[in-house]
């Protein structure tokens, strides 16, 4: 179990991490997500031992690792640009960490073959890394990271350099691999879909602090604040005054925004509110309907039947399912 407490790192006086707290449970995939400049990569590098914290602690199973140098922490880190060794072939890259552990050549060869099988590159050992495609490089980097059985796997935007279709494919594959080897994983990304697809838990980092830490479902249904709701891309964020126009009373005067889950909006001929249908698109199983409320605001909901754009639609809101935020 990894425990990061009150971690602070300053670069030239500016804090990149400002009292960040995080716990990663054994055999879980924990995603660290945040906008660029939020400190997520710095946090990963600090855990790996590549950055020195100004204050705070990083502990593994209750023991601080701060005084352990990088190469003795036993944490594997996969870089966004993979950082494959250009002067070694695929097997040479994968074997590197095993050689550092002082394994005998036979054991190394067995483990290299095993890991290359695991990432779907059997028999690629003698390929030069310069001749690999982007997806193959990613797999080699993953194999190199996993080969020495790291007690914690750190991944820095591991799919960032790949195109979309390849990303989705590799993401599912990676999740299966991590489950198979029962790895404890901390995975950094800025992409919500990627995070929600692979994560057991998602921590959101902003301005050097962890502002949310929950399961994907919990985060989606109950974001802790408006910023997180906006960042993870929740729809139907409305100002308090707009909601008052819709007949919904905010719980207190300091409440600034509310999020109406699309499924809390029911379109029916007897609905008490009226809006113009701005769009209606079949998304498989149901129609995604946009309702124009005027003054540049709109609500999104799902309807089992298609609605004609430009016509009026009636709907009700289940006010009890609205999440309220003060920001």
């Amino acid at each position, binding site marked *: 179990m990894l425990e990061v407490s009150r971690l602070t790192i300053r*670069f*030239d006086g500016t804090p*990149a991490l400002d009292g960040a707290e995080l716990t990663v449970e054994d055999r879980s995939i924990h995603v660290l997500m945040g906008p660029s400049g939020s400190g997520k*990569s*710095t946090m990963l*590098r600090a855990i*790996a*031992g*590549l*950055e*020195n914290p100004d204050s705070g602690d990083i502990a593994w199973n209750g023991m601080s690792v701060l005084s352990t*140098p*990088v*190469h*003795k*922490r*036993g*944490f*594997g*880190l996969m*870089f966004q*640009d993979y*950082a*494959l*060794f*250009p*002067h*070694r072939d695929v097997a040479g890259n994968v074997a*590197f*960490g095993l050689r*550092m*552990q002082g394994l005998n050549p036979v054991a190394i060869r067995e483990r290299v073959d095993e890991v290359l099988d695991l990432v779907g590159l059997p028999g690629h050992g003698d390929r*030069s*890394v*310069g*001749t690999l495609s982007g997806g193959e490089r990613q797999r080699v980097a993953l194999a*190199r*990271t996993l080969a*020495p059985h790291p007690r914690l796997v*750190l991944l820095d935007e591991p799919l960032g350099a790949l195109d979309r279709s390849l990303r989705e494919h590799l993401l599912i594959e990676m999740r299966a691999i991590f489950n198979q080897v029962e790895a404890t994983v901390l995975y950094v990304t800025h992409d919500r879909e990627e995070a929600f697809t692979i994560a057991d838990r998602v921590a959101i980092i902003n301005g050097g602090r962890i502002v949310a830490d929950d399961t994907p479902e919990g985060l989606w249904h109950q974001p802790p604040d408006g910023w997180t709701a906006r960042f993870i891309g929740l729809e139907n964020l409305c100002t308090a005054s707009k909601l008052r126009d819709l007949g919904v009373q905010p719980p207190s005067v300091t409440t600034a925004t509310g999020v109406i889950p699309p499924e809390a909006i029911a379109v029916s001929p007897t609905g008490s509110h009226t809006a113009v249908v701005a769009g209606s698109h079949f998304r498989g199983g149901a129609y995604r309907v946009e309702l124009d409320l005027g003054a540049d605001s709109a609500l999104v909901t799902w309807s089992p039947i298609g609605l004609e754009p430009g016509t009026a639609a009636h709907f009700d809101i289940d006010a009890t399912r609205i999440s309220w935020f003060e920001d």
Partner: protein
Amino acid sequence: MGDSGAMKTRPWVLLLAVPPALFLAYFFIYPLITILYTGLVPNGRFATSAFTEVVTDPTMRSVAWFTLWQAFLSTVITVALGLPAAYVFARYRFPGRSLFRALTLIPFVLPTLVVGVAFLAVLGPGSPFGVDLRGTIWAILIAHVFYNLAIVIRGVGVLWEQIDPHIEDAARSLGAGRWRVFREVTLPLLRPAILSSAALVFLFSFTSFGVILVLGDLHHTTLEVEIWRQATAFLRLDLASALAVLQLVGVTVILLMYGRFSRRNAAELPLRPSAEVARRPRTSGERVFIAATLGMLGLIVVTPIVVLIARSMSTPTGPALTHYANLINPPRASAVFVSPLDAIGNSLRFAIPAVIIAAGIGLMAGVVIVSAKGHSGRLFDTVLMLPLGTSAVTIGFGFLVALDQPVDLRASAMLIPIAHALVAIPFVIRSTVPVMESVQLRLREAAAVLGASPRQAWREVDLPLVSRALAVGGLFAFAISIGEFGATSFIARPATTTIPVSIFRLLGRPGTFGEAMAMAVVLMAITGIAAMGIESMRGSRSGGV
């Protein structure tokens, strides 16, 4: 992410800076200062007489004038002939393209004295073309063009390949004719590369020594030759010093201009071609142009080499290896002169310590330059590059006037490899520093998270990546040491005669021109082997970064 903070200058880096700094201070800076001192304080008292004499003496003035004039003409002709060749290589694909391109590089790696002897064989007495241009400006200009063409072809060609032909197509579609497009679009885009290549050609022609010594005469001579003559023939150390100082000023101005042009060269082009721009020629006009350009290149580059080899093997009784045999068993053995065979042995013997010193000092300096980021690293880099701009004769002359104190090293044979190393260190640095810089911090970090200690990371990542570059630098140092003439001519004693010095001696004796040519061919062959080694090491870089 920001700065990793991991690359702080460590104390051991400062320790590594000590040997290169001491080496440079004692063997380069101190001699230069002594030259200045010798010029300004000729007889223990401050006097500007040497400088006044240099500036007012009509002979000196004509030497200075000729130096500038021939350098200017050499530059103009080299650029004029280099541009079409650069264009052909940048824009067209044709059979034998890479062969021709490699061919254009040969002259640049040849020692100056070989170039001088080769053109003496082509244009001097007994020329197969029935001319004798020795002692005319023509022989000098042609040799300089031969020697420097590669600078323009490479320097301009690299930029030309990066100019998107669509820019030119756009200009044509806007109504500009071919010539207008070249003048108003292509030429302005190429300007920085043309100017920086021209500055280099000018610098090399300005400080030309071996070529002028062989092909020129008393009226067709450069400051470089005049420094050598004043110092070694007339023992006027004060005059030679004043000339060296003046030449150094000129070299500094040229180098500053080169620095300005090449910085602009590095500016980003607005558009870069997405794909390879070179294509097969389509019209017969294009084919004729390519054929004519390649023919011109072949004539300039191949003729001197072929004629040199042919004449080295020709005797009054037909082709034979007599001259080569005479190198081994000199018919007119002399007690004073070392036999050519011994000179070959000397050269190879000096090359070994020269390579070791250059590689060792260069590697230490490279590590310092890469580790000490910021101003101090750049300053160190610039200072270590200075010997490259300084003429070889100045370096040799500096040794002569400075190294008798505090310890008289002038009789030491080690001085020769030290001079060679001084010239070669910049090449070692230039071939290793870019590789060391490209060993990204990431790779070291990757090694560390995989369990490698800092020392293991250096051994496993840095060393294998840098060793190949160091071998290339070492081969450069070898080629330089084997061919160096300007500095060696000052410090070589009869017993320490090297191949180039031996060629020069053979040229100066009556009846041994054939042997001189044979020796030049031997030198050319040794240099060629080193150059091939350099090319193959560069080409076969594994992994492909």
